[in-house]
């Protein structure tokens, strides 16, 4: 195996493209090194992009949204006041990835680029209508994150290509979002199932669903409904969760997973709805009591 540390995006992509099936991008390494240790992947070339000088900046805030670069870590997101204010569900998810030490290295973009349907940050990003830019020797192309995911660990980013940025549009005024995750343990763990809910000012709901299908799933946006009506909530949940196909696996049986998905969806929707009216957008305890900017 060879280790390469290019100085430009062009060099990085050229190196990846020269060995498309066996080269791998190295950013945080929190997924790749585990896979290498278990010999699930045996790269011929590691392209460490952390020294690339023309890489997209980790976090750039504009009026219409935020651009994330490949080196934006989960910890960067959790600490950023505007990301916390605009995308509570994304920050809640980022704060649950692994542990502090993992979050200090794990790349937000790589979490999606790995294409795992259980990735914590994917449901919020899908519900928030994120898009990615893929760079290759043939140029750049952009896709919504929802269409980026093709199947378990399969995405529109092919061998020899690199996701160079992610764009998340600023949410509509007086909307909010929340993220709920079920795990077996309270500490370091992967999701049994997860839900991100975006609720807008008219109570129209969009959800992103994790670990209940071959990819992160999108539900809605559904029609506005009365969130305080249990009957209407159940009907809305039926529609929003229709695409989910929970299975039995090592983390949960099918009935439990199906039931928890519904429970988490309801919690995420109601919490997101409640946050719409809170001017200070105080963030819940899952973030260790740190609130505000």
């Amino acid at each position: 195996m060879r280790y390469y540390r290019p100085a430009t995006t062009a060099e990085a992509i050229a190196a990846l493209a020269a060995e498309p099936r066996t080269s791998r991008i190295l950013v945080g390494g929190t997924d790749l090194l585990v896979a290498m240790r278990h010999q699930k992947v045996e790269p011929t070339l590691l392209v460490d992009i952390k020294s690339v000088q023309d890489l997209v900046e980790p976090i750039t805030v504009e009026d219409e949204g935020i651009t994330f670069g490949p080196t934006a870590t989960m910890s960067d997101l959790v600490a950023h006041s505007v990301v916390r204010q605009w995308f509570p569900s994304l920050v809640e998810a980022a704060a649950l990835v692994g542990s502090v030490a993992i979050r200090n290295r794990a790349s937000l973009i790589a979490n999606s680029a790995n294409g795992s349907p259980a990735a914590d940050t994917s449901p919020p990003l899908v519900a928030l209508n994120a898009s990615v830019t893929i760079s290759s020797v043939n140029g750049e192309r952009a896709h919504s994150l929802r269409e980026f995911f093709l199947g378990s660990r399969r995405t529109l980013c092919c061998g020899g290509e690199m996701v160079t940025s992610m764009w998340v549009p600023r949410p509509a005024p007086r909307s909010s979002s929340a993220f709920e995750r079920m795990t077996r343990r309270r500490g370091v763990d992967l999701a049994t199932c997860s839900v991100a809910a975006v609720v807008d000012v008219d109570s129209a709901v969009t959800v992103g669903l994790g670990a209940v299908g071959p990819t992160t799933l999108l539900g809605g946006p559904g029609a506005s409904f009365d969130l305080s009506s249990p009957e209407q909530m159940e009907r809305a949940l039926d529609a929003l969760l229709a695409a989910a196909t929970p299975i039995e696996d090592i983390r949960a049986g099918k009935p439990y997973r199906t039931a928890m998905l519904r429970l988490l969806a309801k919690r995420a929707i109601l919490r997101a709805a409640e946050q719409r009216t809170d001017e200070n957008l105080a963030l819940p305890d899952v973030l260790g009591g740190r609130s505000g900017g």
Partner: protein
Amino acid sequence: MTASEVQLDDSVGETVVNVTCTVNGKSVGFSVPPQRTLMDALRYDLRLTGTKTCCAEGECGACTVFVDGVAVNSCLILAAEAEGHDILTIEGLGEGEPGGLCDLQESFLEAGAVQCGFCIPGQVMSAEYLLRSNADPSVEEIREAMSGNLCRCAGYERIVAAIRITAQKRANR
């Protein structure tokens, strides 16, 4: 120059990586195969065996060190990635202190937090990182921040106590 215009040598990258970095305040150099982790380079190439190998896949925290002041799992970092960076291991934490231990390490001993001791270097590094960013953490905040460090001997109570004691010590300084 676009990616399609870049002319690469037949095979880019190195099969042996020469690394120069700072470890515990001293400049060091080592030559390693690309797949060697920082954890293994610290332990085998630099003989700093305070950092422990346990799960070696980012779940247990026994290998926790600081890179540029940030707590990380050294088992998930290649030695090659350390180039030009500043590493602090458990050996460096108490350097220069009377008795060779810092106040946090003393607190771990006072609180009876050390049983077999294997998880302790990682626990101490993570605890130090917590206290540097949050000088007065609540029990809940401590448990959340330390949840990446596993202990098979004890019930974590005395580790939490050691951290609270240290926060108090530092506030009183």
